[in-house]
């Protein structure tokens, strides 16, 4: 008699906690985001480009950048919609093991200061048919008490009211 072989597996969940040091550049950026609800960049003293997120050295010209606030520039959080994409497939968040409901929208934004930025495009009921390249957008922060010093302290970017 040919019995199908039973194959075994061992199931487990890897659960590890971390304390990631954000350092004086990204750490300062995240603190300002959490407490003031603003984005900051550092301007490279060598080649003049904005570094977002701020970092200690420019990877293009290798110039050391100063710590906050010298050469740091506060951004307006406003810009225009460059493009967006609709995410259709379920993905597990490796921090929580939960799956984000889909579909949802990701946007690319051209900030007023010229930089590109990527975040969710909200709110949840935003209609794709209302979206056009070039529409003005603004950053929406989560309520102060919900912020943790993470990029997700930004709730989403939305089309500026009255411009849909």
């Amino acid at each position, binding site marked *: 008699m040919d019995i199908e072989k039973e194959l075994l597996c061992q199931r487990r969940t890897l*659960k590890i906690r971390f304390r*990631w*040091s954000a350092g004086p550049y990204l*750490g300062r950026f995240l603190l300002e985001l959490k407490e003031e609800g603003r984005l900051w960049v550092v301007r490279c003293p060598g080649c003049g480009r904005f570094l977002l997120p701020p970092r200690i050295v420019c990877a293009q010209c290798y110039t050391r950048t100063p710590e906050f606030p010298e050469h740091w520039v506060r951004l307006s959080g406003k810009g225009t919609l460059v493009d967006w994409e609709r995410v259709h497939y379920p993905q597990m968040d490796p921090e929580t*093991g939960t799956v984000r409901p889909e579909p949802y929208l990701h946007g690319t934004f051209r900030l007023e200061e010229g930089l590109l930025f990527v975040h969710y495009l909200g709110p949840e009921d935003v209609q794709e048919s209302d979206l056009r390249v070039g529409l003005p957008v603004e950053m929406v922060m989560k309520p102060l008490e919900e912020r943790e010093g993470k990029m997700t302290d930004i709730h989403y970017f939305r089309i500026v009211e009255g411009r849909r």
Partner: protein
Amino acid sequence: MKTREPLQVLGRLYVPYANWVGETTSQFLCELRDKRRLRGTGCSECGKVFMPPRSVCPTCLASLETWVDLPTTGLLMTYTSVHYSFGREYQPMDPPYLLGIIRLDGADTGLCHFLGETSFEELRVGMKVEAVFKENREGNILDIAYFRPIKAAS
């Protein structure tokens, strides 16, 4: 300018995995679960008997297809005691507990397992031990509850 403490961001990893043990180990664990039987595999080139069984010889990479019946008794090769706790998720038993490496009679390799019905003071390298099986077995190496010293008949 106000100085600030650098930020530490609290993060975590939470990812599920299912690691498949393969045909050879599955067969070993199923027989352990269903028949309380311990079988190793032997290499015809090197002449070694492996417990737990392997499908590939570590020395010559030959495929090991010969199964060898082994008793549930063996020799204690070495032992230690564990006193500190690093979380029940990563530890199969609350400390303190005893761990030993047991070479089953007829095997050439050691099997790491718990030692029970004994104390650290009573243990000796080279003493005879036997496997004690769990009542409810699930198909993993912990279906052996522990090994215990074989008491001389009195």
